[in-house]
C-alpha cells in the first residue's frame, strides 16, 4: 500500500487538501498513516499548549492611554515632516497648479465672449497637461526604481522605505489630478490615474523591508499591467499636447475591461 506523504497528511489535518475523501478512505485502512497523523496531531496539540499571558481585562484601556497622546503628536509630526524639503516643493507646485486650473475654470463661467471661453478652457487644459505630465514623470521614476532595483543574491530583505515615502506623496497628488481629470471629462487620464493609485497604494502600504519574493510580486504586477508602458505613452501624449496645444488628446485608453485587479 502506498502511504500518504507528510505534506498530504498535514494538508488533511489543516483542511487544505483537494483529496479529503481519498485520504480519509486511506486512513481507514492504513494503520501506519493513522499513526503518522497522530504524531502530526501531537504537534498541533503542543501548539495549543503554548499559553499567552492574559494582559488583563483593562488591557484595551491601557493601550488607549498609551496611544491617545500620540495620536495628536503623530499628526503634528506628520505635518511637520510633510512641510519640509522636497515635499514642500512638490506640494506647493501641485497646489499652485490646481488653484490655477480652478481659477481658469471659474474664469470660463464669467459671461464672456465665446472666443475667450475657449481660450480659458485651453489654459486650464494646458495647466492640467503640464501638471499631470510632471506627476507622471515622477511616478515613472518610482516604478522604474522598483523595476530596476538590483536584487542581490542571498539578500534576505529589500528596503524600499525611500521609494515608499515618495509613493505616499504621489498617492495624494494622484487623487487631486484624478478629480480634476474627472471634471474635465478626460476618461483616459482617469483610467490611468486609477490604475496608478492602486499600485502606488500597494507600494506605500507594503512593509518597509520586503522579502525578495514579495518584492518580485510587486514588480510582476507592474510588469503584467504594463504600467510603466502606459505611463510613458500617456506622458508622451501629454508632452505632445504641451508642444502643440491644439493636438487631439491621447487615444491610448487603458479601458476598464483591460484592467486587472491589483
Amino acid at each position, binding site marked *: 500500500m502506498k502511504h500518504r506523504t507528510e505534506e498530504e497528511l498535514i*494538508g488533511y489535518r489543516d483542511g487544505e487538501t483537494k483529496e479529503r475523501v481519498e485520504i480519509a478512505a486511506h486512513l481507514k485502512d492504513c494503520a501506519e498513516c493513522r499513526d503518522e497523523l497522530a504524531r502530526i496531531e*501531537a504537534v498541533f496539540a503542543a501548539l495549543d*499548549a*503554548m499559553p499567552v499571558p492574559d*494582559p488583563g481585562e483593562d*488591557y484595551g484601556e491601557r*493601550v488607549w492611554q498609551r496611544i491617545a497622546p*500620540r*495620536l495628536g503628536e503623530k499628526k503634528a509630526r506628520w505635518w511637520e515632516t510633510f512641510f519640509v524639503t522636497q515635499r514642500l516643493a512638490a506640494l506647493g507646485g501641485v497646489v499652485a497648479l490646481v488653484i490655477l486650473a480652478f481659477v481658469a475654470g471659474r474664469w470660463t463661467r464669467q459671461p464672456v465672449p465665446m472666443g475667450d471661453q475657449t481660450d480659458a478652457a485651453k489654459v486650464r487644459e494646458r495647466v492640467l497637461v503640464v501638471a499631470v505630465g510632471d506627476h507622471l514623470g515622477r511616478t515613472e521614476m518610482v516604478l522604474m526604481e522598483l523595476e530596476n532595483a538590483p536584487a542581490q543574491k542571498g539578500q*534576505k530583505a529589500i528596503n524600499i522605505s525611500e521609494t515608499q515615502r515618495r509613493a505616499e506623496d504621489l498617492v495624494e497628488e494622484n487623487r487631486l489630478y484624478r478629480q480634476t481629470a474627472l471634471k474635465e471629462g478626460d476618461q483616459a487620464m482617469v483610467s490611468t490615474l486609477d490604475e496608478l493609485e492602486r499600485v502606488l497604494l500597494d507600494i506605500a502600504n507594503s512593509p518597509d523591508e520586503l522579502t525578495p519574493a514579495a518584492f518580485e510580486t510587486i514588480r510582476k504586477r507592474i510588469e503584467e499591467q504594463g504600467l510603466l508602458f502606459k505611463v510613458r505613452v500617456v506622458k508622451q501624449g501629454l508632452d505632445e499636447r504641451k508642444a502643440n496645444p491644439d493636438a487631439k488628446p491621447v487615444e491610448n485608453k487603458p479601458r476598464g475591461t483591460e484592467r486587472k485587479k491589483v
Partner: protein
Amino acid sequence: MADGVEVSDAIAVERTLTGDRDAYRVLVERHSRTVYRMAYRIMGNAHDAEDVVQESFLRAYQKLKQFAGNANFGTWVYRIAANYAIDRIRQRNADEARRETPSRPGEDSLEVDPLSQVRDMSPSPERLAGSAQLAERMKAALAELSPAERTAIVMRHWDGCGIEEIAAVLKSNSNATKNTVFRAVQKLRRALTPFLEGKEARAMGTEG
C-alpha cells in the same frame, strides 16, 4: 458618545473620521486583546507584543481614511498588526545577526527558561501536552521558524485565517502560502519529535 450604548465598529470608524477622536477609543478597547494574542505568539514576548499592538492602532488611525469601511475593522487592524509584527521580527533578526551573536533559541528574544532546553525527565506525552516544559519547547521551536513561517502558523492555527488572508500579509500567493504553513508544521515537528517521541518510547518501555 452616549454611555452604555454599544456602537458598532462601522459607526465608531465613521465618527473617528469626522474628528471624534474618542470614538477611536472604542475600537482600541474592543480589539486590543485579540491583536495582543496574535502579536505575542509571533513576537514571543510581552514587551514586543505590546509594542506591536500600540503601533498597529496608531497606524490604523493614521490610515483610517484608506479603510473604506467595506471590511471588518477588527480584521483590518489584525492585518496591519500582522504586517508590522513580521517586519519587527525581520528587523530583530537582522539586528541580532549584526551583533553576531549566535542565534540560540530561547536565549534572549524569547522568555524561555534555559533549563527547559535540557532533555527533560517528565513522563508521557499525554501528561506533557499541558506542561510548561512542552510550551517552552514549542516557544523555542517557533523562534527558530522564519518570520513568514511563524506568522503563517500563528494566523492559521490559532486565529483560523484563510490561506488568502495569510498570503496577503506575506505578500505571496496561495500555493506558496500553503507551502509556508506546511514547512512551519514540518519544522515544528522536527524540533519536537525527539522530545515527544523520546518520551513516547520511554513510556512504552523501550528506553532505560
